[in-house]
């Protein structure tokens, strides 16, 4: 039996690695995607424009405008001169937010009365607008703190924030460990999803089925190379994350590899399952979309799983990517111990076992 499996494993490796183009596909696009996504998938707001309507013109208003202009997040300040111009700047998306400084602003500030400014936000870009509001609020409260200090008024209670695990809230620390899992899944899944379907299409699968190879042996023969390739892909991503993106790896690498192994098995199972359902490569690719896009959207990579309706949260339990992202972020940023990993590990093991079993049964069942 092992001789036959060995022959099959060698054949599978050759089928993927012999062709220069497919070797390239395993390295090029994932690397490219890692770089692109890590830079693009960020919620940090940078390079936005702010409009300021200063009806006051007094020293306090000017100081406030200068403080806003000096903030690194805002690349450009557009001074507008009327409500109409302000409205237009928002309408045309020239500015994401506008600060409207009223006539009495400087007078109120000098008199020590509570002074107000109006902030108008572009609700079409709700997420970024929220963050911009936060920046503006910080600027305003810093300004009023400074004003109080100048007058020798003691400051009221002050919040001092300390961000654990990611002290400077660097966004890539959050995204890159997730991307490592996503890209490993992408490659591991596509390599397997196409493999059986391709053989069915070319007629070589019949050739395997009439040979002494049993469905179990075919399953193992398909699993081993895909698992090795998946783990190699994951390792490559890990190295990139640590070297290029300088993400601190605080946890145990061996633990991470153990989890990666279980994850890749579940992905390979999923891929083989889709592949054994498909009769052609085209069907397998479509099946890949059906699985991969929801897997990424429901993984907690971009939006927290906790924000989803509870029935959907239950459904995400069947998504290996969701579990691996938890582990990957955990091991990278907070030295996750094995016990904390377990609740994420066993679902992946179950997914792998069920899909691999189903794929093995389907090899023959698809013959009717």
């Amino acid at each position, binding site marked *: 039996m092992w001789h*036959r499996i060995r022959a099959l494993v060698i*054949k599978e490796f050759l*089928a993927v690695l012999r*062709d220069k183009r497919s070797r390239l596909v395993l390295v090029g696009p994932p690397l490219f995607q890692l770089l692109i996504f890590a830079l693009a998938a960020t919620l940090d707001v940078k390079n936005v424009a702010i409009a300021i309507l200063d009806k006051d013109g007094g020293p306090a208003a000017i100081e406030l405008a200068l403080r806003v202009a000096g903030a690194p997040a805002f690349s450009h300040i557009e001074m507008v001169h009327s409500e109409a111009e302000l409205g237009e700047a928002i309408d045309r998306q020239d500015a994401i937010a506008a600060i409207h400084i009223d006539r009495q602003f400087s007078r109120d500030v000098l008199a020590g009365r509570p002074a107000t400014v109006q902030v108008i936000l572009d609700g079409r870009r709700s997420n970024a607008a929220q963050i911009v509001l936060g920046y503006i609020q910080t600027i305003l409260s810093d300004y009023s703190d400074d004003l109080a200090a100048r007058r020798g008024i003691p400051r009221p209670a002050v919040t001092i924030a300390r961000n654990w695990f990611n002290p400077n809230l660097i966004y890539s620390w959050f995204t890159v460990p997730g991307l490592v899992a996503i890209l490993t899944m992408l490659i591991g899944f596509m390599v397997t999803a196409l493999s059986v379907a391709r053989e069915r299409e*070319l007629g*070589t699968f019949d050739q395997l089925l009439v*040979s*002494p190879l049993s469905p179990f042996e075919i399953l193992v023969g398909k699993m081993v190379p895909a698992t090795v390739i998946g783990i190699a892909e994951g390792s490559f991503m890990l190295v990139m994350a640590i070297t290029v993106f300088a993400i601190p790896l605080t946890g145990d690498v061996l633990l991470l590899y153990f989890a990666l192994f279980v994850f890749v098995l579940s992905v390979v199972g999923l891929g083989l399952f889709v592949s054994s359902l498909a009769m052609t490569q085209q069907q397998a690719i479509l099946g890949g979309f059906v699985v991969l896009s929801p897997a990424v959207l429901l993984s907690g990579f971009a939006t927290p799983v906790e924000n989803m309706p509870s029935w959907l949260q239950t459904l995400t339990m069947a998504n290996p990517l969701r579990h691996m992202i938890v582990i990957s972020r955990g091991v990278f940023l907070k030295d996750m111990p094995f016990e904390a990993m377990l609740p994420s590990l066993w679902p992946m093991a179950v997914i792998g076992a069920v899909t691999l079993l189903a794929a093995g049964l389907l090899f023959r069942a698809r*013959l*009717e």
Partner: protein
Amino acid sequence: MQPAVLVEDLEKRFPGSAAPALADLAARIPAGRITGLVGPDGAGKTTLMRLIAGLLHPSRGRIRVLGHDTVAEPDAVHALIGYMPQRFGLYEELSVLENLRLYAELRGLARGARKATFERLLAFTGLASFTSRRAGALSGGMKQKLGLACALLETPNVLLLDEPSVGVDPLSRRELWSMVEELRSAGTTILWSTAYLDEAERCDEVLLLNEGRLLFAGPPGALKDMMRGRTIMVRDPRANRRALLRRALEVPGVIDGVVQGRAIRLVLGKGVPPPEPHLLGASAAAEIRPDTPRFEDAFIDRLGGGPGGHSPLAAAMPAITHGSETVVTVEGLTKRFGTFTAADGVSFSIRRGEIFGLLGPNGAGKSTLFRMMCGLLTPTAGRARVAGLDLATAGGRARARIGYMAQKFSLYGSLSVRQNLEFFSGAYNLRGRHRRRTIRAMIDIFHLAPHLDMEAGLLPLGFKQRLALACAVMHQPDVLFLDEPTSGVDPLTRREFWTHINGLVEKGVTVVVTTHFMDEAEYCDRLALIYRGRLIAEGTPDALKLAARSEDRPDPTLEDAFIALIRAEDANGERAVA
């Protein structure tokens, strides 16, 4: 008279390949005749067709279609020709009528003329009662007829048909021919390309191509006449005909030979007198009589004769003496797909050392039967046993005793020749020294050494064929399943293939084969004719021919027998309905 197509000093090279696809080609295709473009796969037939259609430009020389240069005046050429490529671009999801409408639209056929044109073409192709059927659900023959109808939408002056008869059963093939003959009488020039050499005999003129070069141009009769007196039939009631052929092919002066039912048919070298029976190793009871020459004889002669009769493959195989006399038993084998019955209660049995052929028109159910026998399809009822076991449920040990060679080349095209051999030997439990020795032997037997590191998918067709056979027999199977093993392969490779198969059978290997080639069917000990899922006739090739003998057909060919049996079955069916 001006030729319809004039080819002058033509050469076509494709970047990246050393040998030209076509070289030194000059030909005239006469107007209003059927010209056969004949040659094995890879001879350059499709390239020439595409050059004539103006879809490719020649590397040297030129082609004129009714006086118009294909490079300088492509539009004029397109207006004159109809082209039906090998796999005509039918839209499988669309119905017959929708396909016609689409092509009428693409060709800019005037709306007013459509209805009449469609009616005429549908009547002509016999598709009138299938207009709403999906093209994908048509049989191979009907697809070709629909393709032909689409190519005829504009009544072209020159009609180019690229291998219209591939995958088409003999019955539909005859119908296609009579359609083309009807077109000829309406004045259309037809260029019909084919790898079936017997089709050449039906053409008015023939261009015989091999490896990009023109071997012969002229009426097929002229070529056959050169072979007059050089073909003989040997019938020896006392000798095994396979052994007789093997010995005869080794006799000097015999350049080619095939099994022909109970007899063998030999082609002699130029000026060689018919040999005495004892020289051929036949008994004194052997009867030798002259036979009419065929086009294929001339082709083989031009190429310098066929391969010898000795099979080094068979020599390397041990004789099979174990096991029961009956190797394959099929009992009431039935397969239903929904309401459609693809196989209906088929029973037969096959003895050890027998070649058993499954014949039948496209869609008759022979592939379904074949796949059930191999264990690739689960029967709805009945059972198929190979060496006493059901292959669908039996373990790997049972499957290790069969060999399987599929219709299309189904080895790993992206792996090298050596890697394919290594994989299949491993999958079939060969190991260690035995494995290495077997691979070595296969490389020697099939002359694979110069191609070992080449991707299998890039091999010339003949070598693919050899590699596929090598992979199927490396583990010395008791039973060999062959699904249309030589379709599209040139006659020399086909001869070599059957020499190996004959040799293996003499060693006791049992062979089950499906085929569309009547000359392949002649090699079989017994044939089963499958039609509409049922076994309608079974017997030796000679017995089937005998059953089809009539007053106007005293000596029917196997193809005649095939068609007569199917017509009789149709008549039966109609009577039963009435």
